């Protein structure tokens, strides 16, 4: 415990340190920066966070995060309802949207299978995917999972579960390097990966 600052500041630092990419040292720096820019940054940030926490929800259809449910992508008439792209996280969905590589709809699993981390099929949004795959309108499911061991294991698992549904199951092909994470790929690579997808 830092004797020099009060419990409020300590609490702020401890919470900031839980953010990805921030260690205790950078959390301390961020806290100081916020306190220095109280009006320009800290208060608007607190307000934005409060609003986001109150209004943003997970889309019951696809798992995307938005202020509406269904989300804007699921509600859009301009998105192709026949093709569903399965991603691990909303971050991956954002990466694909940034690349404008895909015009269909999404399904966010909310993670990947990992026995060591206690994440099993029940913790993932798989049942809803099976339901969506079984619908008349669905014709193709693209498994856009990361080329990690856990990502590929999850892709095999889902492909097996969807065997009964009359849909084409494809996965992103060339371009996604082994061990690669979608979030870190450049837009051109992502677009190429979509074009050269192959049966899973």
């Amino acid at each position, binding site marked *: 415990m830092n004797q020099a600052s009060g419990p409020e500041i300590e609490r702020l630092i401890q919470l900031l340190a839980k953010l990805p*990419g921030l260690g205790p*040292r950078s959390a301390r720096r961020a806290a100081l920066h916020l306190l220095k820019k109280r009006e320009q940054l800290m208060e608007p940030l607190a307000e934005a966070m409060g609003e986001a926490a109150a209004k943003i929800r997970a889309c019951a259809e696809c798992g995307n995060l938005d202020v509406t449910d269904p989300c804007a992508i699921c509600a859009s008439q301009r998105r192709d309802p026949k093709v569903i792209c399965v991603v691990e996280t909303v971050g991956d969905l954002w990466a694909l949207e940034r690349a404008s590589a895909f015009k269909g709809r999404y399904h966010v699993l909310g993670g990947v299978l990992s*026995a*060591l981390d206690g994440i099993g099929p029940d913790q993932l949004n798989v049942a809803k995917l099976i339901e969506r795959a079984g619908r008349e309108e669905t014709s193709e499911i693209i498994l856009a999972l990361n080329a990690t061991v856990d990502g590929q*294991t999850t892709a*095999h698992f889902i492909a*097996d579960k969807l065997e009964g549904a009359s849909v084409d199951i494809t996965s992103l092909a060339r371009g996604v390097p082994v*061990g690669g994470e979608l979030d870190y790929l450049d837009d051109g690579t992502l677009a190429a990966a979509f074009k050269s997808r192959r049966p899973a």
Partner: protein
Amino acid sequence: MSAAGPDTPPSTAAPASAAVTRLKLTNFRNYAELDLSLDARPVCLFGANGSGKTNLVEAVSFLGPGRGLRAAGADAVRRHMAEGPADIWAVYAEALTRDGPVSLATGADPADPARRRTRLEGAAATQSELARLFPMMWLTPREDRLWAGPRADRLRFFDRLVLAGEPHHGQTAIAYEKAMRQRQRLLDQWAETGRIDPDWVHALEREMASAGTALAAARLDALVRLQGEIDERPETRFPKADLGLEGTLEAWLAEGLNASEAEDRFLDALAGSRRRDSAAGRSLTGPHRTELTARHRAKDQLAADCSTGEQKALLLGLALAQCAALARARGAAPVLILDEACAHLDAARREGLAAAILEVGTQAWLTGVERQLFEPFGAQAQYVEVENGRAGAVS
């Protein structure tokens, strides 16, 4: 067919083996600061016990993939002083590689100093990229008991030889191990609770089968190339070895099964061994159980039964043959670190070692307590004197 057909030998003018041209250490082990300028010749380090020779070559091993020659974590290498550990440590190098000159830095991650971060030309580097640019092999006193020691150590040693020629081998091994651990967790839970999701286990077994087959195939390729090199080499001061890999997958591939047949058969074997693996608490079949065997050819004796000196000579012979095989196949030899390798060699063998290193044209890093140990290199090596956390080139 054009003039440059597949039979054309690789151009000898092609950028050869990787070589460190500058090495800078900051708060690394017993070095507060070090800045060494080098050329592509072998580097001979000499100095008293405890002066920092192994630390220095460990820093070099940090330029390649993995955790270096002591398998140390990021926390162990930062310099400890009387006042406590230094905050930030770093190894910076400039090097000639097959891609031309590059700069490489590895050190404490500023966001989380207990972790190590590696940057190539200022950008994040993957392990496979490092393995491609800095193929690396080492022999240290730890390997002295390799032939008589645990099977897993021998396999790890051989996998490092393979990795020097196949940059993805390390990632494949990690993928295999990871899928295996995940599967074992499910099988352990099965033993505890009686519940299991066969589809989940099957998905993991598919990953194990594909990574496992790639592992075994890469090992077998490397073994065939290495044994070919050993067989064709003229007799040297280092004894020839007859090598073997005893493993289920390796055996299937050696029998002539193609990779996808072997993969299918391994997948079936995994499905069939779930109960056994569940009861045992570990995976009983697969390429993680492979045994590397070696016989001293001239003595027709198992390596493990040879004298300590002969065992060491066998290892040196293997490392040198692998360097030569890779120089032939890839046009570039790996960086070879030999920590205290000369100490137990007689004068004739020391001469043989220098000749073999110079012939391959690798930037070898050798350590020893006295400069005289490296006499056979003459002017064809560069010499660095190490003294209590300081090191400098001497002519």
